[in-house]
């Protein structure tokens, strides 16, 4: 079939599993450029492609700085989601808010679009022998916009604030069971040690841009961020107006060197369509994130370019393992077998998504094991499983949220399930009603026998492996309880080496294919749209947008 969107720059072209694994290893820094080129050619990848990948992905890169070739001193106009409330690094939990934080603030560690960590305000980090203590070395010569030097006391205070249950911290759920308040030690002005609750192989991700609340603030931050906007980043606040927009100006004292644009202007939008129209009408240079639905016109517009990042954004379709009708794993597997995943991806995302294999291991994760075979639509097998389980079909209600493509996906599931006699009724609610009190017994999300939940991108699969699937997981809507799984995940989380992680991943993936507590049908790409001629715009799938090298041409 003809590629309907010839204009998209692929960060990673879709290749076979072996090729993707190789690319993954290269991205993850497991093999060097030379090894990559050698093994790639052995696999039969063409030289132009190999060179393109090796050039696009710079394993030594630090910040997402393409060579600053654009014109200096321009103003970059960005369409941004509307921040949901007050901008406060401690409480922010929405895309619009985190985008604002990240314009002025910076993290200890930068989680690059290729999911590999790079230094930001920390220059180095290392674990002790078992991964239970991590020591970070801070960058010297970093100043806050208010003038003070950033030192260890600011870092300690910032992370303490986020880990403290008294502080309404949105990062509390991230640090729970990982880092407790009082366990952060200032060793000297530029060295900080984190004493973890348990060994953790991926801990630096928790202090990286992955944890969007963790921008480093001055130690004496008083909760009045909207007054100060004090950070260390390449841009300083110029003006912020709730519900309208914000503008920032270049920080001449930025530690990272020259900031290319003179100003950036963010306009807040309550939906995608006006942003698309504003971009087409020349009122915007960049839309921080677009979804395929409603942006079909942009994808084929020759005046626009789409920056496409492979990501782990997905939907979890949980089936409760503890009560009928899904308490038999054969029934769960049968349902998963009815989905024509490639058609779903084509229909909902115009192909801009990865296939899911009913585990949180999105293909983008270097730790994912691609040797586990992909689940495909197989009605015969599904019917056989239903028969074996003694089920001739049943009615069941799929509860989900009124959000993006989710109602459409639910309709597709409904039609697919009909093929094996499962009569799916849909209950689509506003997200707030779906999540309810977000506690067992008081939430459609956690209580419904059959539900669909939205999950954003994560830099590492750890949280996705634990919270929704382990026996005591706080988001375990599937009520999945499997000691073998819990053990494997604990092993995975504590593991530091990628090879070993991938080995354990294979066993986790196999186990989840058999049990199928949750259907993961797709992981869709993070898309950013820019006007042609706008260069140096660097988004991440976490929802950040780095503009220090941007130029509006």
């Amino acid at each position, binding site marked *: 079939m003809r590629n309907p969107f010839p204009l998209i720059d692929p960060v990673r072209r879709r290749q076979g599993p072996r090729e993707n694994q190789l690319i993954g290893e290269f991205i993850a820094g497991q093999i060097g450029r030379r090894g990559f080129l050698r093994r790639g050619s052995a696999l039969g990848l063409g030289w132009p492609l190999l060179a393109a990948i090796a050039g696009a992905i710079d394993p030594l890169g630090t910040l997402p700085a393409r060579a600053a070739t654009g014109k200096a001193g321009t103003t970059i106009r960005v369409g941004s989601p509307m921040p949901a409330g007050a901008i406060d690094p401690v409480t922010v939990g929405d895309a619009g808010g985190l985008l604002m934080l990240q314009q002025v603030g910076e993290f200890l560690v930068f989680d690059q679009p290729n999911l590999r960590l790079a230094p930001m305000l920390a220059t180095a980090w290392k674990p002790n022998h078992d991964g239970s203590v991590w020591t970070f070395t801070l960058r010297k010569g970093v100043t806050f916009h208010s003038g003070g030097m950033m030192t260890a006391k600011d870092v300690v205070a910032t992370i303490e604030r986020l880990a403290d249950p008294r502080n309404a911290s949105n990062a509390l759920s991230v640090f729970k069971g990982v880092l407790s308040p009082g366990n952060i030690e200032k060793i000297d002005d530029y060295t900080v040690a984190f004493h973890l609750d348990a060994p953790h192989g991926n801990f630096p991700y928790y202090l990286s841009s992955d944890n969007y609340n963790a921008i480093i603030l001055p130690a004496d931050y008083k909760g009045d961020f909207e007054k100060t906007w004090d950070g260390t980043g390449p841009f300083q606040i110029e003006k912020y107006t709730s519900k309208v927009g914000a503008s920032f100006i270049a920080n001449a004292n930025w530690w990272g060197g020259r900031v290319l644009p003179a100003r950036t202007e963010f306009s807040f939008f309550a939906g*995608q369509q006006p942003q698309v129209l504003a971009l087409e009408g020349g009122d915007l240079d960049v839309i921080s994130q677009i979804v395929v639905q*409603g942006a079909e016109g942009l994808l084929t517009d020759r005046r626009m370019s789409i920056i496409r990042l492979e990501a782990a954004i997905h939907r979890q379709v949980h089936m409760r393992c503890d009560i009928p009708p899904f308490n038999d794993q054969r029934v769960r597997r049968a349902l998963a077998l009815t989905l024509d995943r490639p058609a779903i991806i084509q229909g909902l995302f115009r192909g801009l998504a990865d296939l899911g294999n009913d585990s949180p291991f999105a293909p983008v994760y270097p730790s994912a094991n691609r040797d586990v075979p992909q689940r495909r639509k197989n009605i015969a097998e599904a019917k056989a499983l239903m028969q074996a389980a003694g089920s001739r079909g049943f009615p069941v209600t799929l509860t989900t949220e009124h959000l993006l493509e989710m109602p459409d996906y639910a309709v597709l599931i409904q039609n697919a399930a009909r093929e094996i006699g499962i009569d799916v009724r*849909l209950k689509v609610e506003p997200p707030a009603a779906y999540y309810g009190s977000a506690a067992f017994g008081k939430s459609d999300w956690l209580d419904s026998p059959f539900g669909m939940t939205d999950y954003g991108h994560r830099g590492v699969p750890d949280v996705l492996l634990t919270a929704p699937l382990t026996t005591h997981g706080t988001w375990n809507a599937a009520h999945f309880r499997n000691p073998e799984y819990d053990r494997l995940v604990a092993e995975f989380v504590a593991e530091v080496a990628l090879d070993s992680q991938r080995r354990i991943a294979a066993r986790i993936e196999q186990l989840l294919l058999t049990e199928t507590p949750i259907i993961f049908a797709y992981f869709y790409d993070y898309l950013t749209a820019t006007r042609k001629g706008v260069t140096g715009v660097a988004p991440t799938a976490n929802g950040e947008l780095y503009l220090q090298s941007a130029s509006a041409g």
Partner: protein
Amino acid sequence: MSREVIAAGVVPEEAPQPSRWRLLRRSGGFRAGAAIVGFWALAALFGPMLVPWNPFATDPLHALAPPSAAHWFGTDQLGRDIFSRVIAGSRDILTIAPLATLLGTIVGSALGLAGGTLGGAFDFVLGRIIEVLVSLPLIVVALLALVAFGASPATTIVLIGLVFAPLVARTVRAAVLGEIALDYVAAAELCGESRLAIMFVEILPNVLGPVLVEATVRLGYAVFAVASLSFLGFGPGPPSPDWGLAIAENYGVIAGGYWWTVSFDAAATASLVVGVNLLAEALHQALAS
């Protein structure tokens, strides 16, 4: 609008029924309205059996296909046939809107009748409550209530019914006050009839005309309101082919040039409200003449 209805109400009802009915049938507006509403009523009853495609069958690989011989109105984002969905989509709205109108008319007429006849403190309190309700944007009230109670057809019916009740009450109250001034009520009072008896036996039959007109007018607004609520996401949920829902679902893609995903549903909604309104107007004219 209420003024004219009041005017219609105070016209002495002497003209014999048959001529009025003939008048109604001869009115072009009535015929057109009846034809439109009748068409959609038939579609609601039998549509799903007559349409060329299953309105619910998805085909993601043929999504957003423009109108063609196979798909007269094209296909939507999930590859469903829009013609079949537009025809089948009249069912929800034609169930919810009339029921809501019925509820609003009954409750409203009772309140208006009581307020107008009893007067005094009851009438005063009623008047204040109506004033509070009328000073609120109704759509906002409806949305807040749906957020609070959750959206379902039953909530929508009760909600629209209750929102309409004070409006109906206001019209009926005015009509009742017009009647009370007339001699026959005073005569009945002199004969020692109880207030309640006067209310139901004397006044009610004489305000039925305005009540009927008001009910038809309200039906038009009920269709308006139900469609708007489903557009805002408080109506029938997916995969219903409901028009408001279909427009909301596909609104996002029209900038890409996929006009057929919303145009036919919009036209269907417009035709239904116009049809109902033509009926209401014709009825009003017939009763006023």
